[in-house]
């Protein structure tokens, strides 16, 4: 199985808890005999490609250096994530089984790749904008929420880390309960659960 992981943070670039989680996941996926690729944001220490602990890691920068906010930065950066993922797809004779998107940042890229190249994706929910912004509904928050909604709508499966988050995804975005898998990090059967979701997603395809 060949999967591409999108995450806006990945060691050595650590912003919150997500970086460590995705790192553990990617290393475990190598040990589990799959072929994970990580596409993440640039870190000046690493350059654009490296393979720490066997994980093929691409790091992209934003061609647009000047920004007026996180949203414009993320939306333009998506194109580079998309470009690198498309390159992996073509380099590997169009054999990419799925994409695993962590949080909202790179959902736009995953959606285009699904529509254009039939690569299905899993949306792994770390946190939601409604919680981060304490229910604020400014145009800025609404845009992020609409991207989260798009991800939940277009994803083949949603991985949530607790039952509480499952219920929140349902409450806030009306994500179908049956589309979600609750897989708490570090729990026994964590990796088994992730692999099962990946397998189902790859077999079902993008439609």
């Amino acid at each position: 199985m060949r999967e591409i992981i999108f995450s806006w943070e990945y060691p050595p670039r650590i912003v919150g808890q997500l970086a460590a989680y995705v790192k553990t996941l990617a290393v475990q996926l190598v040990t589990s005999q799959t072929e994970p690729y990580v596409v993440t944001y640039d870190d000046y220490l690493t350059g654009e490609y490296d393979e720490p602990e066997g994980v093929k890691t691409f790091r992209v920068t934003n061609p647009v250096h000047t920004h007026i906010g996180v949203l414009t930065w993320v939306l333009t950066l998506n194109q580079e994530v998309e470009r690198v993922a498309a390159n992996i797809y073509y380099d590997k004779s169009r054999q990419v089984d799925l994409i695993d998107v962590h949080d909202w940042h790179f959902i736009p890229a995953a959606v285009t790749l699904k529509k254009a190249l039939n690569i299905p994706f899993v949306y792994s929910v770390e946190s939601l904008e409604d919680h981060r912004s304490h229910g604020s509904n400014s145009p800025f928050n609404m845009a992020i929420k609409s991207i989260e909604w798009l991800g939940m709508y277009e994803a083949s499966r949603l991985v949530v880390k607790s039952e509480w988050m499952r219920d929140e995804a349902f409450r806030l975005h009306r994500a179908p309960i049956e589309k979600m898998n609750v897989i708490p990090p570090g729990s026994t059967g964590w990796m088994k659960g992730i692999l099962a979701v990946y397998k189902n997603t790859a077999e079902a395809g993008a439609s």
Partner: protein
Amino acid sequence: MDHDLTIMMLTWEFPPRTIGGISPHVYYLSKSLAKNGAKVYVVTCDFPGAPQHEVLDGVEVFRIDSYKNPSPDFATWVYLMNMNMQKEAAALAKSLKAKVDLFHAHDWLVATAGIGLKHVFRRPLFATMHSTEIGRRNGIHSDYERMIHETEAWLTYEAWKVICCSDYMVSHVRWAFGLPPDKMMMIPNGVNADVYAAIKKNELSQFRSRFALPEEKIVLFVGRLVHEKGVHVLVNAAPKVLEKVNAKIIIVGNGYMKEQLSGIVKGMGIAHKVLFTGFVDDETLRGLQTCADVSVVPSLFEPFGIVALEAMAAKSPVVVSDTGGLAEIVDHDVDGVKVYPGNPDSLAWGITRILTDETNANRLRSNACKKIQERFNWDRIAQQTMGVYEAVLGEYSKSFWAQKS
């Protein structure tokens, strides 16, 4: 190629959604390309009342769900709209039996969609730069403007060929983004003279009477009421014109300068001689252009100047500022009059020169009309564009993208 050349055009405006010059440009270009044997798909923003999908003059038009929540600002909306456009265009391109041969993006407003589609489908991207942020704003003064400037630079970087509508714009874009000359291509904008020929001349005098007295000459300005269009220069030239000629100055369009300008006109005591019509529909606009005794394009920055071409096609004599694309459209004293940009005395001189010498005005009219038919007709422009497409697809066929994908 084993199928008709298949083109996907990306544009944020397409009739009936018309904000500026890109909408008519893409409409006529697509229509003429289709007439010349290409299969053209236009992907554009939706518009109230316009269908999601229609075939218009041989062109397949798809209107996407543009982002409709309130947006923090215009540029953020553009990127969000591009996210939707890219999603829907990707699904469309994927669903077509014939592969899309190339993507053609118009301005930075569809930059990220164009760049994304290029890479996921591995097909060449063309970009037409109709304008630039650094030109519109006469420099880059804020992070907001710099972000747009850098997005434009990125689009020109990703494009296989960058098309501009005038030699002036080619050199401006090269200067702004540091592009190599062999990446640039000049293909002029066109104008459709048929729509003016179709106007019934016998109904015009009644139409005219809605705007001016029979004894008043009509001086027409058409454009957004913003600084770069130089409408304030015309307002300042107005008293000098009115000293010599009984005229009505008609200003068509909207913009942030409107109130300020009408205040100035009142202060000058010539409010009865200057008419602000606001935005008018196509029929009224064409009627006015046909009635105009002189059409004025006093722009300070003008990448092309389509409004001058329209006036020439409507057989109205033109006075233009000697700048940008306008300088290339008009030959001074041959098919129009050129004046110094930003100079009300010079503009007033140009206007009075046309209004006081009818023989000369008629000579300019007929020369201008000839030029329009020869140089700025859409069929010819479509053929030039096809030539560029085919040359690039030839280069592309030798690239590893074509070989491997």
